[in-house]
């Protein structure tokens, strides 16, 4: 298992349940830091709605807001997503090992 400090994952998954937030996060990961206004130009939602989604992502530590002059830039910080993926990969690998042992044991029967 991941031996480092672990944040609760529930908030992370709840925030990412929204497809618009996933899309916004993906855009920030692939396209780099940008403003809510520019993000809103690409999606059929208002700037205010984009800001709200970005704030939810920020509360889950998936993005950070950084001021540059008069504008606020949002940058993806996907480390927490990596924590979630680590849990899924670790858990999947553990069950694969356990089931292989069970299969071997059943075959010896």
């Amino acid at each position: 298992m991941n031996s480092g400090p672990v944040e609760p994952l529930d908030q992370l998954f709840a925030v990412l349940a929204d497809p618009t937030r996933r899309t916004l996060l993906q855009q920030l990961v692939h396209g780099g830091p940008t403003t809510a206004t520019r993000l809103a130009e690409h999606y059929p939602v208002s700037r205010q709605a984009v800001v709200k989604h970005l704030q939810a992502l920020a509360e889950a530590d998936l993005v950070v807001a950084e001021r540059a002059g008069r504008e606020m830039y949002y940058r993806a910080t996907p480390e927490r997503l990596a924590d979630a993926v680590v849990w899924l990969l670790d858990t999947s690998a553990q069950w694969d090992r356990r089931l292989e042992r069970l299969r071997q044991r059943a075959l010896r029967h």
Partner: protein
Amino acid sequence: MDNDATVTRELDLPIGAEELWHLVADGERWADWMVETSEVDVVDGGRGTVVDDDGTTRAVRVERVDPGREVRFTWWPADGPDLCSTVSLVVVPQVHGSRLRITEVKASARSAISGRRWELRAIALSARGATLVSV
């Protein structure tokens, strides 16, 4: 909150459902396949400790035993209680042999097994990382 990470597996086995049930419902026999060592009382509300094959010690609390069908328990690493998850082991009789259905949910206290789930789709693992999708 009802969005959780979920891992599922199914395995068909050439042993009868009754024998598979003993491997699932006898805490000592968990050490035959699921963990390295096991001291768990598999009854409703039962508690215990297991040690995984990677050395992780987990505390276990049995949530529910449906005789002959399902054992459901919650476990968490001794050094990482935030990684609490709920495991359902379901025994399904087959015409020839039996099937074990496993669901492990990284659960909030409220949602357990039910509700919307998250699942890892491995479609993007080779490129920019994994994709989480709701199912």
